């Protein structure tokens, strides 16, 4: 029974990079849409060219990493041939749709047409494509022969990763590049609170859903290739707790120190890498 190997590492990279990109896009899209509604004008500055380029770079890196798990990467375009039955095909379709829509936003932004109704429509369409992308990504793992993955914990943990790393990543990069003069902007505080909610979702998922998913009931051996299995979840949780504490300090201190949010993001990212490693390590199918 194969444990995490080189190919799983590429999938760990692909899933987390994609989820971070979608989460970051949702964060800025929410700011864009909320600002528009509340103030009656378009907040042009949130969807900057560098931000859209960063999202595209993350998605490009994710796609490149994912190609490395294929035996024949040159044949990758044919992965779209089974849209009727395969969640893997659908995942690729929605990934490409998301990339295309974000690229379209970047082009419109470059042309200075960010106030056009089309821009707003594309923001909504991109957010929806990101949602379908992550949904397909989680569904493809929910195989009926793999009890360890077939459960609500798989989509919950995938969406929680996006909601944790996306907003936190936006805050960390924003803090490193521009610092936070004075108090936090409402959307920045909301982004931080969304990340805290994602931490809660991760903890609830691990506590209530994972044990019911048949992880410990699979007939095949699990955690077989891990040298010391207990180290990984313990380290993942401790880093998550540390990141949460740092985010708390960042959000509720009087003057915002961007160092806290950067460290919180690093802790969360490493914790998520360990968590995803465990997800693949827990693969255990029924039968032989």
């Amino acid at each position, binding site marked *: *029974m194969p444990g995490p190997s080189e*190919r799983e590492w590429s999938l760990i990279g692909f899933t987390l990079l994609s989820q971070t990109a979608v989460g970051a896009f949702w964060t800025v899209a929410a700011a864009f849409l909320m600002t528009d509604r509340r103030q009656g004008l378009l907040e042009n500055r949130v969807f900057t060219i560098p931000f859209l380029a960063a999202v595209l770079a993350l998605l490009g890196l994710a796609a490149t990493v994912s190609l490395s*798990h*294929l*035996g*024949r*990467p040159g*044949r*990758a375009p*044919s*992965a*779209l*041939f*089974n849209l009727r*039955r*395969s*969640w*893997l*095909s659908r995942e*690729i379709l929605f990934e490409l749709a998301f990339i295309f829509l974000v690229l379209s936003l970047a082009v419109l932004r470059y042309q200075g047409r960010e106030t056009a109704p089309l821009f707003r429509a594309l923001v909504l369409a991109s957010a929806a494509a990101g949602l379908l992308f992550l949904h397909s990504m989680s569904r*493809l793992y929910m*195989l*009926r*022969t*793999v009890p360890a993955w077939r459960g609500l914990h798989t989509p919950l943990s995938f969406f929680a990763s996006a909601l944790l790393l996306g907003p936190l990543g936006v805050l960390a990069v924003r803090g490193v590049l521009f610092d936070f003069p004075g108090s936090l902007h409402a959307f920045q505080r909301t982004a931080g609170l969304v990340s805290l909610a994602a931490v809660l979702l991760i903890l609830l998922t691990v506590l209530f859903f994972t044990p019911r998913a048949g992880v410990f009931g699979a*007939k*095949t*051996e699990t955690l077989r290739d891990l040298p010391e299995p207990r180290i990984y979840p313990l380290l993942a949780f401790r880093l998550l707790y540390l990141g949460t504490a740092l985010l708390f300090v960042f959000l509720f201190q009087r003057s915002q120190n961007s160092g806290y949010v950067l460290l919180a993001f690093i802790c969360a990212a490493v914790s998520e890498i360990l968590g995803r490693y465990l997800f693949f390590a827990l*693969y255990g*199918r*029924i*039968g*032989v």
Partner: protein
Amino acid sequence: MTQAFVRQYAFYYDSGVCSGCKACQGACKDKHDLPPDVLWRHVYEVTGGTWKKEGGLWVPGVFAYNLSMACHHCAKPICGEGCPTKAIYKRDDGIVLIDTLACIGCRYCEWACPYGAIQFDLESRIATKCHFCYDEVGAGQPPACVAACPMRALDFGDFEDLKKKYGGTSEVFPLPEASVTEPALLIKPHKDASRANKDTAEVANWEEI
């Protein structure tokens, strides 16, 4: 047997007479010139039970049996359900094949198959599996594994014909419930197979397969 009369090719396996010699495994590997890490037919050695103390004596309550397993060319091949390129398909005679020119080597099918039938070939970088020696059966000859078995533990033919001839089941520990993929497989279980579900049992030769 010609393909025109077969709706679903299937294997029959008598676990009770199998000696675990692995001639089937070797014949398959030899015929298809499979690389070192690839086996299209595996012989699982299932062991279980324990020693029990009866009075002042320790009495053996252990058991062991073999299961020779390949692709079971399922009625609901889960390997093909998720294949993003439709590389895995089912012929009219029930044989499930992999289109070697269409496979991208994503190994999703390998995750899904509960019989460990899909084998990733590190040389060709694609998924491979038993194709029921379609060349041999098309010419009226048995598959290599069936022909090689010195105990006549293996047989093949149309699924319905085999059911009439032998009966049998496909639900023997540690195999999954038949409803999962509806395998074209009939097993005459070893006399101790029923104990495997009650006692502690495991596959003892993971390293070998």
